[in-house]
């Protein structure tokens, strides 16, 4: 399985995701944002970080960069796209995913391990997880407060496009288990075709027992099969 990680100036989780992908036996390539061609890829990852310093608005400038046209083309032809954290923000800026990420409700950067619940376990990204499985996973963002309009929210629910929701350890989804104020505790969503996943938590930080846990591994192993 071939993967490409897009590197913007200011990306800072690019190495982390590359390490995770290689550990999971992906053949990975890094792709600089000024490139105008993508290598042949089954999976394109838009990594976390602060692309262009998050100036103007997080993800806004990266959403207009040269390579993004190629990512959009690939997405439309069905290539798998994973946007993590800043990558999720960038994907919403390109229109590949609807909705947006507002500032966290407490107006502060939040880094901690939280729990998320697998809502849809029938996609290319999630089939190795059990339905309603609880994952302990790291978040690290200033703008992770997912918001969207009424129509899109209904679409997300009707078509089962919600990937993960913030919950507590036992799976209760409530305001108490919502770290950043996201609408209905949404932590990750799919596009209508379910070939694009955007998520705020960092699965690449959860593949190594010695630093955290292995709750992120099944996301990558789902993609492999």
């Amino acid at each position, binding site marked *: 399985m071939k993967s490409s990680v897009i590197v913007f*100036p*200011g990306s*800072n*989780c690019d*190495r*982390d995701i590359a*390490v*995770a992908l290689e550990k999971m036996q992906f053949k990975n390539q890094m792709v*600089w944002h*000024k490139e105008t061609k993508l290598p042949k890829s089954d999976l394109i990852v838009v990594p*976390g*970080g*602060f692309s*262009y*310093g*998050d*100036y103007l608005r997080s993800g806004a400038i990266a959403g207009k960069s040269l390579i993004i046209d190629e990512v959009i083309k690939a997405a439309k032809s069905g290539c798998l796209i994973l946007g993590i954290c800043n990558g999720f923000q960038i994907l919403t800026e390109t229109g590949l995913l609807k909705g947006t990420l507002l500032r966290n409700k407490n107006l*502060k*950067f*939040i*880094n*901690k391990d939280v729990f998320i619940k697998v809502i849809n376990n029938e996609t290319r990204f999630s089939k190795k997880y059990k339905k309603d499985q609880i994952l302990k996973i*790291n978040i*690290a963002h*200033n703008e992770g407060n997912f918001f969207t309009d009424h129509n899109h929210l209904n679409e997300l629910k009707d078509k089962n496009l919600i990937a993960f929701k913030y919950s507590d350890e036992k799976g209760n989804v409530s305001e108490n288990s919502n770290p950043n104020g996201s609408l209905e505790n949404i932590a990750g969503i799919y596009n209508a075709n379910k070939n694009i996943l955007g998520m705020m938590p*960092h699965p*690449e*930080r959860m593949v*190594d027992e*010695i*630093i*955290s846990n292995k709750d992120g591994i099944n996301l990558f192993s789902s993609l492999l099969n």
Partner: protein
Amino acid sequence: MIITDQIVEKHGLSKEEFKNIKKLLKRDPNLLELGVFSAMWNEHCSYKSSRLHLKNLPTKGKQVIQGPGENAGVIDIGDDDAIVFKIESHNHPSYIEPYQGAATGVGGILRDVFTMGARPIALLNSIHFGSPKHSKTKSLLNGVVSGIGGYGNCIGIPTVAGETKFNETYNENILVNAMAVGHAKKDKIFYSKAKGLNKSVVYVGSKTGRDGIHGASMASAEFDENSESKKPTVQVGDPFTEKLLMEACLELMKDNSIISIQDMGAAGLTSSSVEMASKGGLGIELELDKVPCREENMSPYEMMLSESQERMLIILEDGKEQNAKKIFDKWDLDFVVIGKTTNTNNLTLKYENQIVGEIPVEALASKAPIYDRKWIKKKTKKSSFNFKKLKKIKIEDALIKILSSPNHSSKNWITDQYDQSVMCDTVLKSGSDAAIIRIHNKDKAIAVSVDSSANYCKSHPITGGKQIVCENWRNLITVGAKPLAITNCLNFGNPENQEIMGEFAECLQGIKEACEFLNYPVVSGNVSFYNGTNKKNIYPTPVIGGVGLIKKLSKPLSHHFKKDKSSLILIGKTFGHLDQSCFLKENYSINEGLPPEVNLLNEKNNGESLLKLINKNLILSSHDISNGGLITALSEMSISSGIGAKILKPKKLTNLIEYFFGEDQARYIVEVEDNSIGKVEKILKENNIFFENIGFTQNEFLEIEGELKISTKDLFKINNEWYNNY
């Protein structure tokens, strides 16, 4: 322009110093030259009051690759790996403009580390604020924490450890010390020493603006009521550009293009060029028309004194310009050859085809003033209160008071604002005795910690100086690391005051004794004097940042209790020393007497023996006992794990308050599996270690027979409320 006395004074130079300048130049300086002198001769850059004392510190050892004098210290951690690290203060700017002051403090120390060829892998900080009741404290706390986070999070280096303290001594002068740690290949360390004639001097990074002009001079003066007006001297940080600069520099460092490299920190272009030339015994000529400027009509004076951030000066090998420029173009950064090395031994400044300034390099460097400032010994005072006459207090009430106090409350509110996990090598995070960072792609790791004890240093500077080194050393031991070397940030008041200079001299004496005894050399550091406002000086606050090595990382050792029914051993002797303790401070507002005695022999023996036990995998969890004493340490082990403990009453010492809250040094609590107890006791006895079996872990409750019973949930709650309600 005639240089009047007033102009000289405005530049922070004394009359005597000005005379000296004229003598060195054999003429009067012009304004530009005066500015350059003021930038190099101020306390911050010249270390003129501290140098005589600093040279007594031990700086050598088998593990040391580079000691003080470079951008950062370098130590050997085996194989082909080296660790590069340094701590630096940004106190004055952070008080005037907390967000930018703290942010650029982080940016500056990161540059010091990647300038040497190391990829930064961890950030730490030590921040001290005034009383929480003081009107400015809340906004300063908010600003500093967001500034530290804002910079580190954006550039993508994890902020993994630190300390936050409140004390009214910092009401008008907070402390913000930032430490950066990087990893390099041993044979790929870059230094600032220039070599060779007619080599290109290249300016890379951000453009030069008018920000931060005279920042270093500002940081070398006390505050007064007009300090607010100094805001324009605070630099503005851009972590995004720093990330690009870091990647570009590290990319260029992969081949052999660089002869020497120096970041533009305090005193910007001036200090970087002088530093390189002076170390190399060369001259340097700069054509200031070529300096990339952010603003129009900048004068040579402004260019030379600007402290705009995210800039570097590089001396390149012949013929390497093109290739180097390509790299900086890729990262959209300026790359301009602005000068060359010369054999004149002068700093020559050209502008519009004219020489606008020319100063012998050595006049700025080795001939900068050194002062043997007068100092007097501390008059120490024994405590005057009678412990027996104090109002009786229950252990539980005293413990709750400590755990819920600003200084001992959980710092999660702060550390949740820092990305601690980026780079995916953070094994143990903030809230532990020390953080553990794995060396990327290897199975070894380093442990890092920063520590200070201003109260101890104030009451007895020599003991205080020893104690902070020992506490730092202990913190690394408890996570299973062999302590290797330290960096120090020496925050003091006005050195022209003999008492303050005495505090400095004696703290340094203490640091020296402890470092020598523990083979724990100082490899880098920074001095910050003039911390105070209107003649009110801060407590002496040296901060120690230590690095230790974990040769083989298996399961990380933390202070969280691991399971119930394991045995608890207290290593080290308890005398029950309460003077200067946080028990007296939090419960009775008494801040008197001398700090606990530091016995270096016991420190070394206890620490090294514990390390033996850890390396034999006999220890489940371990924690050093510091502020708040034994019961506070036990509570911390419970809070972080949700597992309680049942503690037996001591057999000998009768006063329970002294036993449980005394702050005697060289002590640790360790959790030991029941069936390993025999082996552990045997090793401790063989090494002549004093130890006590104090009880065992249990579910849910922290308990002292007949004295205290409190659930771990309640402890957690008590410990986690303060920041959220502040």
